[in-house]
């Protein structure tokens, strides 16, 4: 091999991947569950000193730079979980690392990794079928389904900063997701963060809020607005050829040309006004002169709506973004019932209500510090993701360690019928599953050994809805407490965790390629 390339073989390689993966699992395990703790992330490097407080596994893992290849795999599955379903980012990492911890024991008992993998695969199958059997589906009954959604939202939020206001935010999330009518387009839900006030002061606005100002002297309130959304320069239409230049022989000619430029602008404004609009929203700046022309025509002109804003605006008002104005009849105009100014916190904003896309809404978050606001936004995003997932895949399962215990029992039962070493691996799999309720209880400061054994016992008696109630620290029926999770999230956690564990187990050799030589820069300077 080339100099500087490194290779780690069999035992050493396996060991280093185990250690790396377990370390990552240990890092995030304390954030699991309703009483999980937060972490401060302190940025190094470019924006040194800026801080972030978070409970979200994916956010933590995304930001720590890991070197260990196995740890990197775990970071990746948490990222995938975040993209796929939005929640369960911590659980998936913790489960994978527990699976590896168990595998480590088995390896030291001289079990071949392939045997462990085979056992894990069988166990996954059994666990999945047990999970599918236990899933409930209430989608036929809208009232019950809404209740389900509320429960899921509350369960997701209970582990986050919003836990104390979870009733309120759960309502907020469910309302906004149900407005989407199954389209699952989270773009239509806008989240605005404003410092000041408390989290309880946050609210849902049935409309769209734009953080911009209305031009001088223009109407501040318009009913039955006809909106043209555009992306066009409103300074002067100049020839965009590099180095275009005018040569004249007298100042009067320059003045004439100036006037001509102005006329051109006026022409453009006239063309825009031909659309019979009363609101004009542009992504680029609107200069003084066109602004005044709009004001004279009684049209509200809003300049410099940023890119994100303008696309969303086009979506919610049902218009298209225009950049040429020659054919008024072809341009689709946006509409809304009312546009007016409103004050949120210390800032004036523009509120569009009664937009045709009934799906659109804005959630305004208030909070004491920026960290709280950022974390609240992340939590809300998680909850919204899970809810949209649930609207698509309506099955639900019980949370609070209930499904894990259920799966663990199914796996243990199945293992007792399996002859051979695979059975050992299956039992280990069950133990790893049971670690989830154990960690939840540990984080809440309760006696985990006692609680988990109680939980297992009650499942053995056939009470399949029992789980951990972390408010009171007892084993209780999850149906009564209302801790429900999305089936989709749980299944994804199970499958990706076992897949990741399998992948890491298979490794018996780590090769680090030689780093590219850095040669001294001999360029001119």
């Amino acid at each position, binding site marked *: 091999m080339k100099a500087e390339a490194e290779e780690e073989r069999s035992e050493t390689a396996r060991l280093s991947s185990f250690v790396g993966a377990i370390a990552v699992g240990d890092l995030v395990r304390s954030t699991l569950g309703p009483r999980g703790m937060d972490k401060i992330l302190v940025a190094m490097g470019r924006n040194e000193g800026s801080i972030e407080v978070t409970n979200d596994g994916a956010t933590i893992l995304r930001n720590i730079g890991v070197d260990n290849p196995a740890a990197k795999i775990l970071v990746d599955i948490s990222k995938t979980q975040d993209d796929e379903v939005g929640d369960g980012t911590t659980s998936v990492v913790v489960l994978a690392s527990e699976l590896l911890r168990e595998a480590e024991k088995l390896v030291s008992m001289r079990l071949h990794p392939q045997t462990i993998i085979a056992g894990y695969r069988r166990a996954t199958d059994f666990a999945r079928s047990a999970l599918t059997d236990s899933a409930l589906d209430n989608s036929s009954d809208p009232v019950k389904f809404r209740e389900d959604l509320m429960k899921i939202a509350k369960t997701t939020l209970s582990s986050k900063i919003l836990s104390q206001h979870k009733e309120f935010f759960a309502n907020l999330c469910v309302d906004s997701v149900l407005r989407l009518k199954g389209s699952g387009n989270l773009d239509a839900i806008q989240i605005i963060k404003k410092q000041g006030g*408390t989290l309880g002061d946050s609210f849902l606005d049935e409309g769209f809020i734009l953080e911009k100002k209305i031009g001088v002297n223009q109407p501040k309130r318009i009913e039955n607005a006809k909106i043209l959304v555009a992306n066009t320069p409103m300074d002067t239409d100049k020839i965009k050829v590099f180095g275009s230049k005018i040569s004249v022989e007298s100042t009067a000619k320059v003045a004439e040309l100036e006037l001509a430029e102005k006329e051109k602008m006026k022409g453009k404004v006239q063309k825009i006004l031909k659309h019979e609009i009363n609101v004009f929203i542009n992504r680029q700046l609107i200069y003084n002169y066109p602004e*005044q022309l709009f004001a004279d025509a009684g049209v509200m002109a809003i300049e410099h709506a940023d890119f994100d804003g303008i696309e969303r605006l086009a979506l919610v008002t049902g218009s298209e973004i225009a950049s040429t104005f020659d054919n008024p009849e072809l341009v689709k105009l946006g509409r809304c019932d009312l546009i007016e100014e409103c*004050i949120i916190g210390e800032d004036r904003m523009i509120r569009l209500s009664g937009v045709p896309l009934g799906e659109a809404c804005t959630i305004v978050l208030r909070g004491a510090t920026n960290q709280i606001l950022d974390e609240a936004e992340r939590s809300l995003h998680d909850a919204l993701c899970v809810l949209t997932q649930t609207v698509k895949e309506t099955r639900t399962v019980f949370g609070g360690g209930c499904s894990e215990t259920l799966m663990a029992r199914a796996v243990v039962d199945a293992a007792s019928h399996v002859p051979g070493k695979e059975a050992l691996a299956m039992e280990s799999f069950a133990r790893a599953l049971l670690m989830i309720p154990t960690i939840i209880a540990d984080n809440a400061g309760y006696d985990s050994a006692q609680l988990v054994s109680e939980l297992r016992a009650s499942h053995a008696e056939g009470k399949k809805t029992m789980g951990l109630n972390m408010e009171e620290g007892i084993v209780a029926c999850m149906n009564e407490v209302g801790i429900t999770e999305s089936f989709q999230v749980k299944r994804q956690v199970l499958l990706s965790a076992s897949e990741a564990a399998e992948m890491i187990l298979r490794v018996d050799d780590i090769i680090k390629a030689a780093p590219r030589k850095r040669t001294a820069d001999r360029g001119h300077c």
Partner: protein
Amino acid sequence: MASKPMPMKARGPSKSEFKDKEKPAQIRNSNIVAAKAVSDAIKTSLGPRGMDKMIQDGKGEVTITNDGATILKQMKVLHPAAKMLVELSQAQDAEAGDGTTSVVILAGAMLETSQKLLVKGFHPATISDSLLHFASKAVEVLESMAIPVDLSDRSSLLKSANTSLNSKVVHEHSGMLAPMAVDAVLKIVDPAQDSNVDLKDIRIIKKLGETVEDSQLVDGIVFTQKTQGYGGPNKMEKAKIGLIQFCISPPKTDMDNTVLIRDYAAMDRVLREERQYILNITKKIKAAGCSVLLIQKSILRDAVSDLALHLLAKQKIMVVNDIEREDIEFVCKTLGCRPVASLDHFTPECMGSADLAEEIHAGGSKFVKITGVQNPGRTVSILLRGSNKQVLEEADRSLHDALCVIRCLVKKRFLIPGGGAPEAELSVKLTQYAHTLTGMDAYCFRAFAEAVEVIPAILAENAGLSPISTVTELRNRHARGETHAGVNVRKGSISNIIDENVLQPLLVSTSAITLSAECVRSILKIDDIVNVIR
């Protein structure tokens, strides 16, 4: 080689297990210590007898202030938890504008209590839950002792503005600044929609020179620029004011242009035409009847050329240059004029009129004042004067606080007594309430009820009284039902604080309690600090 890592592996997990139990407690402790250090640092600036801090920044600029939010902003703390307290005070600044010191002190006291509870073995989540419960109960108690106030009740508004100003460097001028703040806010309150005020409609102009006493509330507008042009008028009665957004200078196209001159005659012609061009513009302006011309700043070319200034001065038109684009809206609102972006639109209807526009000499500088505006908008300007920069800056901050206090009263029309009375009442009432609870919650509740007494204690300490005897006497009075007993700093005793005219808006106290509780809860929930690369 293979055998060597094996024992390490066996020890690995046990070591990490050990660390797991120990590390969160350490982190929490270090967070609390850092946050407490911040609150200790600004403790001495609370209350009417609180001291000021002198802050020297990296460039050697000096700030003298008593305002918690400003001190913390300048301190540049490094510890992440301490940073959260700094943001907390800024949130209070945004929400209520006043009480930025007390909110940090409250948070510090709550953290100290939490630390004691943690040592006793309480789980942070338990403490956090009961803190939330505590905050909501505290708000109830505060609301029960609130006195409703009407916006027409000027004396009450004055009293609360006075209370806010009393603790500042400029407190000797509170008699003059307080009515100014009250008048300013009352002037911009829109009767149709009076649940909130936009403080951006109040413009504070700072001008070095004279003393704070010479500050004035201007019913109109003040420009810090001086008038342009030599020989033009400096004073204009019955002024017609035009605001233009175009330039009065030789024409310039958006494309590059060159004027080609081939012979001497052409050169002459160019000069003449330029003069003619500008003369034409000024004539049109004069023809529209304009006597005071405000010109928006332009970055592309000279907003107004020397030649234009000369011609305008000749026509007896007063010129104020360099109006920022952001200010245009405010100017329009105040003067009732409309900005004009092209010469063709310059008509008499666009102009506002005022009784008097004059340039005033003050010390070494000049400024322009326009008063007696006909059909004025809901805006107001305050001209602040001060003998040095520090005093001026501090006066600005104090006035802002006072304005915020009045705004709080517009938002939520309730007053409560100041001087530590609400905190003492909270402590007594909530201790009583704690007796009705059971379990961990009851214990935490009582501890937090004691923690809020930190405010009267520090008030007394800063005034040179004995904190222990003051707080105990205060507690005694409140237990006997004297809801309004507070620390009377001037007389150095406990008395009914309402008689002393020390009043503050309810919103300041409630938001201090809820914001600090929220912040403390998020600090308690942290169990690890991770360095990340971004």
